[in-house]
């Protein structure tokens, strides 16, 4: 009779005896995925799309406060985006439209209050808070990945806070309202782009637009942002794929069971 993995019988061997079946039930890398370069590059677009949208939001503030951009244009752009999303949506949801209407009207009603809200706070504080909040928004945003660091509520709250900070610095009620609507589009209700060629096109357009518009304001920052985009889009997937072979997860009978019902 061979050695059995039991404790209730004395099998006549020393206590530190190690059978040849030791670690037989060890499994390595059970749930690992293999990644391919181009699909991963296309997927990285989720991140750059969001960062570019946040950049465009900040740029909208810069241009509106410099009177280079009319609030009417911003409102029109947002309306067009929604219309496009509405047309291409598979299910027409009227409750969604009702909610949108509620946001729009209440936002318009609140804009006069908002535009003078932070008059007593120094501009430096406002800009510092906004930068911090937008960074937090980008960091905690849920890029449709199950990571412990993403937190949709934290990200949304930071975005809303940043937009309130910025909106309160603009010159008129209409400007404030326009920025608020843009904030809702960027942080809360971003139109969903389906995966595929449209997704890649949207990524390229957004990145190019934000880099170009930053460049109009500061070429150095545009250069840095372009480098960041290239890093995230091409370098990070390559890095991830080069690290995959060294993945070494250990599974065995000692693992805590997962309740799968």
């Amino acid at each position: 009779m061979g050695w059995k993995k039991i404790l209730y019988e004395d099998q006549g061997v020393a206590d530190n005896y190690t059978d040849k079946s030791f670690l037989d039930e060890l499994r390595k890398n059970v749930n690992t995925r293999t990644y391919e370069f181009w699909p991963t590059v296309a997927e990285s677009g989720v991140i750059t799309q969001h960062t570019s949208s946040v950049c465009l939001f900040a740029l909208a503030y810069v241009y509106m406060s410099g009177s280079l951009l009319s609030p009417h244009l911003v409102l029109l752009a947002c309306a067009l985006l929604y219309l496009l999303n509405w047309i291409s949506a598979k299910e027409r949801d009227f409750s969604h439209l009702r909610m949108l209407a509620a946001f729009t009207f209440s936002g318009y009603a609140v804009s006069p209050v908002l535009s003078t809200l932070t008059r007593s706070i120094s501009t430096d504080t406002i800009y510092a808070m906004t930068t911090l909040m937008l960074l937090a928004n980008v960091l905690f945003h849920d890029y449709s990945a199950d990571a412990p660091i993403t937190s949709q509520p934290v990200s949304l709250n930071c975005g809303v806070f940043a937009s309130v900070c910025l909106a309160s610095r603009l010159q008129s009620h209409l400007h404030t309202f326009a920025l608020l609507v843009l904030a809702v589009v960027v942080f809360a209700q971003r139109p969903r782009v389906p995966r595929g060629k449209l997704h890649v096109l949207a990524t390229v357009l957004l990145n190019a637009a934000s880099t170009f518009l930053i460049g109009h304001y500061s070429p150095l920052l545009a250069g840095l942002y372009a480098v960041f985009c290239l890093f995230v889009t091409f370098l990070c997937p390559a890095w991830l794929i080069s690290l995959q072979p060294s993945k070494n997860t250990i599974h065995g009978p000692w693992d805590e069971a997962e309740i799968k019902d």
Partner: protein
Amino acid sequence: MTEFQGMRMKHNICMVSDFFYPNMGGVESHIYQLAQCLIERGHKVIVITHMYDQRKGVRYVSNGLKVYYLPFTPFYNQNVFPTVFTTLPVIRAILVREEIHIVHGHSAFSTLAHEAMFHAKFLGIRTVFTDHSLFGFADVSSILANKVLQFCLSDSNHVICVSHTSKENTVLRASLKPSMVSVIPNAVDADMFLPDPSRRDPSLINVVVISRLVYRKGTDLLGNIIPEICKAHPDVQFIIGGDGPKRILLEEVREKHELQDRVRLLGALDHSQVQDVLVQGDIFLNTSLTEAFCIAIVEAAACGLHVISTKVGGVPEVLPADLMRLAEPRSKDLIQALNSAIADCRADKFPCPFEAHRRVSQMYTWHNVACRTEVVYDRVAQDQPLCLTERLKRYRECGPVSGWLFIVIAIVNWLLLLTVEFVMPRDLIEVAPDCRRLNNKKKN
């Protein structure tokens, strides 16, 4: 060095852990029972632990077991704050005073055990470690804990695990040589768990569950099973002992399905009340999601109950197939196992409770554990203690970054030890009298 009494070596052993009396639990009773058995076999055993409320200083528990309650308050999860260096003077004083040859640390969660073993190595004392639990590898807390364990065990003399699965787990976590790990199971005091079939209700089938009501112990699975079983079998009742954050879940299940008269929640039980609750049952149900050994099922089997358990960790190794039924940790499989057990119970196919008790009482005894632990001590006593440079080399192998950190900690501790030796020289430390040996000598 070690005395020889007759043919056997006698050792002076120091058990260290954060978990000891007056706390009641698996590790606590393991240390206490093992110490008692070793004292019976003629060794000198002391216990070092941290203070509990106002209990500080030296206390004696039964049989002259000396316990040092060190004045360090528990910080988190009943462990002292890990400072490494502040425990050196007092632990050195105790180990020198009591002329300890072997330090035996218990439980990977216990910071005091790791620190005491670390300091013992600088004093040339052999170290043994017993691991009582299973750990994962993937989350941050496990990674850090495993690194600490690797550091602690890289220059230890021997490791004891409570099951074969636990041995595999510990070997992987701390990168140990398998020949350095012994498998010595836990034991149960069978005289405290006698069957009493007269306490059972012949018209009902009672399913007993005694565990902490936490996620790890599978209380969610229990909550899924109870309504199904109660619906399918009108004569089945549940007796649930124990408390915890998931108690509310069971109370909700009971409310929702109106099972107030069929599910009894007894709340937290004293260890002395456990046998009383167990003998009222026919079947014992264990739904843990992970267990290194699971002493609860052995206690239940000793009381003559038929055991149903999830097939996790070291549980399949503990009892033979006719005393225990295993099921995958899924509601469906557990319900199926319960159904077949209930059918067998009705058909009277379970082994006789007294026969089961007799078998279990012979499988796991503290006397057996003490003998096997003694074998480990004898082996360890023959080992040459490692010099500092050899130990530093072993720390270096722990990892490219952590290796250097461990080396720095070791060197600082060594310098601190030199300072302490200068301030409180070894020959000025008064050796504590061993009352038992003095008594024995007087008798002889």
